[in-house]
């Protein structure tokens, strides 16, 4: 009896051990366990080593007074602010360059990409030279070029170039008149918002009417009237509540007005024109991926060249363009950390540079910095993925 029991049990045991599914699960669990224990050990080991060496392991520094100044800030900050506020200043500066850079590089990239395909020999070759030069020179060198070779040779403040409209250009940057909002200026803001909203409504109405009756409305003069004319009229009625603070040369530099620093301009220009050279090639590839038959068919239907481009070529090429374009946007944001070499106070320069050094909290500061770049990149790429899924060909 016992014999048979053993015999019948054995195959059951064996099948459990030799069951590939069970084994796969067990292996996965073991692997997860090893990785988790490695991470845990590494973290506790690092913490105990840091404690032994008296390296700060907490985030107490966040609320301590920083004691250093930053020259370009979007949010209020002085040397009496905390390290935490310094972090936000750095983050805002990084985002500013990232957002403006993406807008600028998209404009330049699409322009150059279309120019690459131009039937005009000179335009096409100029675009080719642009792409091949800029994408084959390291970005850091280009940034140093813009900063040291283009912006620094500008004259000193006392010999500034004066541009029309109270704008001055010198080696401290661009000084612009800054608007001062007096009483009643919020009405002008409302008028501007109303104008924009009304224009959008007008567009929708005009489109519907065109579909129904085939008649076109005079859109351009009407929107101009709404967006520009209306706020100007209110400005006149109220007696110019918005004035401009014109910069004055006083002492070492201009006082008043708004200053755009050369570090910012160099970084923005460098990042944008470099990334644009890659975007141009992506755009070219996207446009060329649309089969020639498509535009020929559109021509045969009697569409005008402009409409062929906007209704047939662009929507189809965007499917090919968007995924690699996302990569370029991410590259631009991450490359903005090279700001540290030309003295622009971005996140890396302010937080991972000065704050890290001042507080000695290297591990915490680097972890926060890396997490921030990760979050910015993930947000950007999910926004682009959303756009992509709306643009993608509907599967039938």
């Amino acid at each position, binding site marked *: 009896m016992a014999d048979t029991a053993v015999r019948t049990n054995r195959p059951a045991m064996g099948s459990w051990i030799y069951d590939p599914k069970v084994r796969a699960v067990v292996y996965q669990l073991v692997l997860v366990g*090893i990785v988790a224990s490695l991470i845990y050990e590494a973290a506790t080991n690092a913490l105990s080593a840091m404690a032994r*060496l008296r390296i700060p392991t907490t985030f107490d520094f966040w609320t301590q007074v920083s004691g*250093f100044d930053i020259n370009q800030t979007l949010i209020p900050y002085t*040397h009496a602010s905390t390290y935490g506020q310094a972090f936000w200043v750095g983050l805002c500066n990084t985002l500013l360059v990232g957002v403006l850079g993406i807008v600028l590089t998209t404009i330049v990239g699409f322009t150059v990409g279309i120019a690459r395909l131009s039937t005009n020999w000179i335009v096409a070759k100029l675009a080719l030279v642009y792409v091949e030069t800029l994408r084959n020179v390291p970005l850091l060198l280009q940034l140093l070029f813009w900063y040291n070779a283009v912006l620094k040779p500008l004259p000193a403040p006392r010999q500034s170039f004066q541009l029309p409209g109270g704008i001055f250009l010198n080696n*401290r940057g661009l000084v612009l008149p800054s608007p001062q909002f007096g009483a009643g200026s919020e009405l002008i803001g409302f008028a501007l918002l109303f104008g924009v909203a009304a224009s959008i409504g007008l567009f929708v109405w005009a489109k519907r009417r065109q579909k129904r009756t085939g008649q076109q409305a005079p859109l351009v003069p009407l929107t101009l009237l709404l967006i520009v004319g209306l706020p100007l009229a209110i400005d006149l009625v109220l007696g110019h509540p918005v004035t401009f603070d014109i910069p004055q040369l006083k*002492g070492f530099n201009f006082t008043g007005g708004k200053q755009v620093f050369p570090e910012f301009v160099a970084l923005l220009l460098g990042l944008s024109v470099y990334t644009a050279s890659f975007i141009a090639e992506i755009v070219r590839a996207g446009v060329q991926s649309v089969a020639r038959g498509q535009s020929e068919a559109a021509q045969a239907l009697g569409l005008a060249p402009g409409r062929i481009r906007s209704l047939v070529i662009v929507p189809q090429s965007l499917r090919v363009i968007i995924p690699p374009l996302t990569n370029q946007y991410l590259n631009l944001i991450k490359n903005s950390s090279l700001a540290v*070499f030309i003295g622009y106070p971005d996140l890396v320069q302010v937080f991972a540079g000065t704050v890290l050094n001042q507080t*000695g909290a290297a591990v915490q500061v680097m972890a926060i910095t890396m997490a921030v770049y990760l979050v910015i990149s993930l947000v950007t790429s999910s926004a682009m993925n959303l756009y992509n899924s709306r643009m993608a060909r509907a599967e039938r």
Partner: protein
Amino acid sequence: MKTALFASLVAAALSATVSVASAGTLDTVKQKGTLTCGVNPALAGFGIPDDKGNFTGLDVDFCHAVAAAVLGDATKVKYIALNATDRFTALQSSEIDLLARNSTWTSSRDSQGMLFGPVNFYDGQGFLVRKKLGVASAKDLNGAAVCVQQGTTTELNLADYFRTNGMKYDSVAFKGEDETLKAYESGRCDAFTTDSSGLYAERLRLVNPDDHIVLPEIISKEPLSPAVRQGDDQWFNIVRWTQYAMVTAEELGVTSKNVDEMMKSENPDIRRLLGVEGEAGKGLGLNGNWAYILLKQVGNYGEVFDRNVGDGSPLKIKRGLNALWSKGGLQYAPPIR
């Protein structure tokens, strides 16, 4: 087969995570046979490569002195050139054994896992401006753009000074010494600020040094010291007494040239310094003749000062605060006995 692989993986993982017991820095240095020293990449007089690529300077000679005391050979040093922002992390992470990079001793740095040794240069922060600006005092700098190296005490003193005097300024901060100076030279800033020893050194690197002047104000105390990691008392002692031995030797008139004759001296202070009498070296974990080798190969504090930053160098910095205590300065060493 697969299970065996996993078993060995687990074993490897476990053995890797067993925390490595840290050997003392002295043993590590002896075992390696070289001292890894963090120095300034480009500051004349303190740490800068010469035309043959060898590092020279006051701080570099301090590395030489420690190597001579510990390894018996002043040349056994490996230099790691460090930016202001990277220097303390390099020390904390054991990338270097010793940081001799014109670093200011402050309380916050002492509480961030570092210990600063005796001051090897008493310094103070100043400003360099163009002569044609017509500025005679740092008090006239209201509204100026100031170029500064980030991650330094200089950056903090600058903020303090302008705040105290109720003046405004634009701080233009750069990571490296070179970038900072280049930005000043190209006109991006009205003034360049760093420790005054650095101002004299950097002024010589400008195209027309005579077009620039150092303003008279010294706005801070900058005691520059070599630093080590906390928690290794023996190593800290060696670094401390290396500097003290050099100062004591100057006090006693022992130089690299006469040290051999001095071995025969009857002066008990000299005999104890050179290890003829007493066991100063043994107490530190070094050879009895550590100070002899150090002085023979590197020289006393006065000699080192003179050839790097003093009259024997292009910088021609006066001894000032760095003279011996007996000559009106602050350099003072506790007795070796």
